[in-house]
């Protein structure tokens, strides 16, 4: 009986044990099983490693390289179009940008767009899903219709309409927010479905009959079990956000002054780098994008396995 309750709710009276003991217990109860489980979930590990490697590249690059050379004409203003060399590891482009600096600067910018889009999309989607599933009826119907309509309308098109109406084009952060306005649909739909299933489960009923309030049921009973779903849908939303933003940028509607991966692709298309034979220009952003997408995909399917008990047992 005197085992400390690691899973105690924050509102319950403070335990008599010390904080370190509590943390230790938390480790053994919650974190250790996760680590042990993760060992048996290669997609998750592999995905994290891929993204981690990319981040490591960016981090080291920032430390050891002069990333200011991403600007136009900053690298060797005289003669442009250097192929990769010791001086310019990824070469330079027709406008005299140092493409190594562009890659180091651009990758985190693109991830930033994705994270902003993912964060707002999932937050909004989750809140909407809970409101819909909690109030049912008309509210639920409205949310469902909105989400269904959103599923039908390709997000890229709405983004195009938003982008062409913003004067001076979109900044990186605006880009993330714009993408979030269309990306909430999927999380809202999937989380709503989960909440609807969960609210029919006996333990929710038991909690209700134990006198728990609606808020307590949502945050103490449902939320903890939804965390894997929410995390997975966050990861998916980040990927969708990046995909949409790159598409938008490729169409020439991105932040012109930022060296994001999508803008680098845009300049490639614009300047016909392929016909110029400048493979070093288009290859790095494509590789970076592939790493990001494959990494995110692996993480989300790893999380899927985690949240799906049927798959979990098979691991």
């Amino acid at each position, binding site marked *: 009986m005197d085992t400390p309750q690691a899973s105690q709710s924050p509102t319950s009276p403070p335990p008599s044990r010390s904080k370190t003991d509590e943390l230790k217990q938390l480790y053994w109860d919650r974190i250790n099983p996760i680590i042990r489980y993760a060992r048996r979930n290669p997609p998750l590990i592999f995905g994290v490693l891929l993204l981690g490697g990319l981040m490591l590249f960016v981090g080291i690059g920032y430390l050891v390289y002069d990333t200011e050379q991403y600007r136009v004409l900053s690298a060797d203003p005289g003669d442009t179009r250097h192929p990769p060399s010791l001086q310019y590891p990824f070469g330079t482009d027709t406008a005299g940008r140092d493409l190594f600096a562009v890659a180091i600067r651009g990758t985190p910018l693109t991830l930033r767009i994705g994270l902003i889009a993912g964060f707002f999309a999932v937050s909004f989607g989750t809140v909407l899903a809970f409101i819909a599933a909690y109030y049912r009826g008309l509210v639920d119907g409205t949310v469902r219709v909105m989400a269904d309509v959103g599923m039908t309308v390709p997000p890229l098109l709405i983004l195009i309409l938003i982008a*062409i109406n913003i004067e001076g084009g979109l900044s990186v952060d605006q880009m993330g927010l714009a993408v979030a306005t269309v990306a909430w649909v999927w999380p809202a739909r999937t989380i709503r479905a989960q909440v609807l299933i969960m609210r029919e489960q006996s333990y929710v009923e038991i909690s209700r009959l134990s006198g728990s309030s609606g808020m307590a049921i949502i945050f103490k009973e449902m939320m903890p079990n939804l965390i894997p779903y929410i995390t997975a849908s966050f990861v998916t939303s980040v990927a969708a956000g990046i995909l949409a933003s790159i598409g938008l940028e490729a169409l*020439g509607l991105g932040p012109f002054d930022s060296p994001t991966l999508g803008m680098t692709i845009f300049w490639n298309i614009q300047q016909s780098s392929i016909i110029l034979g400048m493979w070093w220009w*288009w290859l790095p952003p494509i590789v970076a994008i592939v790493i990001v*997408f494959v990494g995110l995909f692996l993480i989300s399917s790893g999380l899927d396995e985690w949240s799906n008990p049927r798959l979990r047992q098979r691991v």
Partner: protein
Amino acid sequence: MTPDGVRSESVVSRLKHATFTELLFVVFHSFLLRRFLFFLLVIWIAATVIFIIPRLSGQDPVKEKLLLEAQRGGAIQTGFEQMAEAYQKRLGLDQPILTQYKNYMFDLVRFDLGTSIAFYPRSVNSMIADSILWTIGLLGTVIVLGFLIGTLAGALLGWPRSPGYLQFLFMPLLTLSAVPQYLLGLILIYVLAFKFSWFPLFGAYNPGTLPSWDFAYIWDVIQHAILPALAFILGAIGFWAVGMRGMMINNQGEDFMIQAEAKGLKGARIFMRYAVRNAMLPQVTGLALSYGTLLSGAILIERIFMYPGIGDTLFQAIRLSDFFVIRGVVMTVILSVATATFLVDVLYPLLDPRINYGRR
């Protein structure tokens, strides 16, 4: 909660004893009509959003674009006055917003998408009509091919009796599914068109050839279509294969799969009639759901290959700030997505007998 008997009764005996009119009533009342109303709702909401977005920035989009064009001057100087006048008249830009909305909706119902600003006095309808056939021809083929090949590949990957070496295909397919298709297109252009010159670099046909229905022209068109098609199909194969593989693996645990084996059925029959047939169902739903995303990908592929389809039209319009063309293309795409999902939903009961007009 509902006893089995009650459910069966409502489906079987009710439909069996219904008169033709009653049957029609049931069918329309419950499913088709509701689905069609939803189809209209989607179009209406999308059209309204398209109407609202430009106005959120606080300026009149058309006026702005007209001003911009006026500043640029040049090629379209002639007729600019009439154009400005025509817009004034057509849209009643000074009128209250509700009137504008009414006019806009009224035009939409008649499928009048307006006039191009950049290529005045060409109508948006005619510009879309010129380009859409290219898109339909290319897309129609690749969506179907990508779906079929990808689904089959996924089915084989998720089938426990498939040869083990097939599993090596999984990582490449997964990577393909994660890469945006137009980026694949870039790589394909570089390798197959630029390095090896096996295929033309861009366009839908050689600028030199005159469109006609002779063999040379058709061959030219096919040659130009192969690379963009390949870019699209490669990506789609990965996408569908990964999904299908998951369904197949999930299906393995179903009781009816175990029972099929207990019945001593031949492997090929279990594969096709039991495993694939059931795993296909979520794939088809997925096709309807991701049709819009596929179409967006196709737009970007056309952009990369300068393929004169609707995507290229859209890109040119974005470049020239040709607002009405952009809006027209967006509307056309939404209409096509809505129609496609509507058709899939309506035809889905043919694939899955559990879904019928009476329920849902």
